[in-house]
Each structure stands twice: as structure tokens, then as C-alpha cells.
């Protein structure tokens, strides 16, 4: 992940829900009120929330806000993924589903979640590869279309690579036959 990586920047722009633990009168603009009270809830972009959750001013003071898992990683979504990873449209949860998940796992110690996500990716990646190979023959569309629309940004890249690979190999074999 590079500093200039456009996808990384957009991933960082995804919002996560947090709860403020401190009274900060100057930051009312964050949730359009006149000052944040302890316990106020708001959704902050990841780039801001992460630094905030890790910051603390004194030795014994607690961090000014607590993070919670974003809705795209909620219990329901986890349960759905456990049932059948292929049936969930990850893009509807978040366009940068895996990106956000990886960033959250850096902050939370969620073994089960990481196991679910790993299995989700492996199962879905096989399907992505299958569709990438078939897209050449049947054209886009058919029963795979809905699945492909639900791919998150990372899986889309995987799909594109797979598709290019198949096409490249085909072009090459055609050329070999010709000459």
C-alpha cells in the first residue's frame, strides 16, 4: 500500500461508527451540534477515527473515542457470510469491503471475523476466477451477472486480471497457430 495509492485513500475515506468519551466543545461541526458531549455517537472516516482511537494525551487518560465495527462487518453480515459467502453482495456492504475489514482487524482482535473473511475470500475467489474465464465465451451476462455486480473493489481487480490473463493466453495461442 503506497502513500499515493488511490484505492487506499478511498478505503480510508469509508466511515466507521464511534462514540466520544470526552467533552470537546470545539468539534461540534463533526456532528452538526454545538460541541461534542461524552457519549455522542457519530460516523467518522477511517483516517480520522483511527488516529483518534489510538491517541491519548496523558499517561493514564483513556482514548477520546471508542470505535465499533462498521455496519458492513456487523453480526448479520458475518452470519450471512458464514452461511454462504457467494450469496452476499459485498459491494452493497462497502465498495472497499476487504480494505475496510483489514484496517479494522488491525485495530480489533477478532479471530473469528478474520477466519470468516479468509474463507469468504477463498470461496469467492474461485468463483471470480471461473466467471473471468467464462466471460470470454458467453460475454458478460447470464446468471453470473448478479454475482459480479456484488464484487468489491479488490475482487473486481482480481476479475479483471483473470480476464486479461485468459484473453492474453488465447491471443498468444492464436498467433502461434498462425505463424
Amino acid at each position, binding site marked *: 500500500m503506497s502513500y499515493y495509492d488511490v484505492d487506499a485513500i478511498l478505503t480510508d475515506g469509508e466511515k466507521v461508527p464511534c462514540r466520544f468519551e470526552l467533552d470537546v466543545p*470545539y468539534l461540534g461541526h463533526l456532528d452538526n451540534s454545538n460541541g461534542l458531549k461524552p457519549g455522542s455517537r457519530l460516523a467518522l472516516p477511517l483516517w*480520522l477515527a483511527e488516529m483518534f482511537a489510538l491517541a491519548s494525551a496523558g499517561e493514564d487518560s483513556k482514548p*477520546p473515542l471508542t470505535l465499533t465495527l462498521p455496519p458492513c462487518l456487523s453480526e448479520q453480515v458475518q452470519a450471512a457470510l458464514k452461511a454462504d459467502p457467494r450469496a452476499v453482495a459485498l459491494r452493497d456492504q462497502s465498495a472497499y469491503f476487504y480494505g475496510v475489514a483489514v484496517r479494522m482487524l488491525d485495530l480489533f482482535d477478532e479471530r473469528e471475523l478474520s477466519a470468516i473473511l479468509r474463507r469468504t475470500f477463498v470461496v469467492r475467489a474461485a468463483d471470480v476466477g471461473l466467471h473471468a474465464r467464462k466471460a470470454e465465451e458467453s460475454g458478460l451476462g447470464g446468471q453470473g451477472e448478479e454475482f459480479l455486480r456484488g464484487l468489491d473493489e479488490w475482487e473486481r481487480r482480481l476479475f479483471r486480471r483473470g480476464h486479461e490473463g485468459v484473453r492474453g493466453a488465447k491471443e498468444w495461442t492464436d498467433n502461434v497457430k498462425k505463424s
Partner: protein
Amino acid sequence: MYGDSGIKLVQHAKRTQNLAHLPPYQTELVRAVTREVRDLNKDVDDLLEPFQGSFDPSEDQAVAYTLLVNHISMRRNKRCLLAYHRTRTDKLEELVWNGADVVDLSGQQVRDGSSRNSTGLTSGDGSTSSLSPQEEDYVRQYGDLLAAYKGQWTDIDLTGSLEPPRDLFIDVRVLKDAGEIQTEYGAITLTKNSQFYVRQGDVERLIAQGYLQKLS
């Protein structure tokens, strides 16, 4: 919310990555982001003013966290700005390597200008170029640099096509007046709508620049 204009800028950059040409420079958005940074900086100065340089974060946490938010927002905006410009300069470098120069890039202005009116993405100052003045400068200087680099090997064209030509001679049609060119077989005057049978190597660059069309 701080950083919203920055996100828009990066979304533009993301779209740019998948395009063959370069969309118009987002003067307005860039200006909005820099203005935001300036405002944030002023906020920081105002907040710190009463402390006269003796600010202790653990004593006044509210101020400390406000400063933190402002600081992170500024850093975020900086990252967005840099990423946007870097995406564009990468694209420009690619175009220069493909044989485009400032004149070619200004050639696509007309098309961009018309699409811009429909999408409402005005670049603010009413100029028709899809490049900012700085970017035009960059292209010019990068082009010079590339030319100097290529000049070290006069017998090989580093930006030439990697595909070996199938025929030595090809038919071309002239799309735009290109004036007179010198070939091994004498001078040819390329006037619009005329057709020639020429050596491919002589006219490759003109094809790439869109003056000639290859007829198969």
C-alpha cells in the same frame, strides 16, 4: 466535513486511471482543498494564540484533540492533493512516451471542452486546456528530457512500436495537412485527403500523431 473535497478529487483520480485520455484539470476542487487547508491552519493558530507557546496537551484535552483533528485533516488533504496530481503526471508521462507532445494534448481540448459543458465540471478560469499551466510546463520539460535521453541512441527509436512491421511499404491517407517530409526517395508534400504509398518507418510518427491514417 473536512476531507470531503479531497475525496472527490481522489475519485476523479480513480476515474482518470481507467481513461485513455486526460480529463480536464479540476481547478475548482484543488482550490477548495487548498482553501480548506489554509482555514484549518488558521484555526490552529487561533486556538494556540492564547497559550503563547506554553501549551500542555494533558491539561486541556479538548483543545489538544481539536488540534489533532485539524492536523490530521490537513495531512489527509495533502495526501489527496498529492495523489491526484501524481495520477495525472503518471498519465502525462505515459502519453509523452507514446509520442504525444503539448500540441497533441491541446488538440483534445476541443472534445473535452464540449463534454465539460454537459457535465458541468467547469475548470473555473474558462480556459479550454484540459491541463493546468503547470502540467503543460511539466509535459514540455518531460518531453525535452525524453528527447535528450533518446538522443544518446540515434540508431534506435526508444518510443517506436514494439511490433515488427509486416510490410515495409504501406498505403496512407492524409487526414491533416502535415507539410513536406523528407524520405530516402525524395520529398513528399502531405496535403489533406491525398493518398501515398510510403515506407512505414518514415511516417510512423505522423500516424501516431493522427496526421495520417494507415490503409490496410
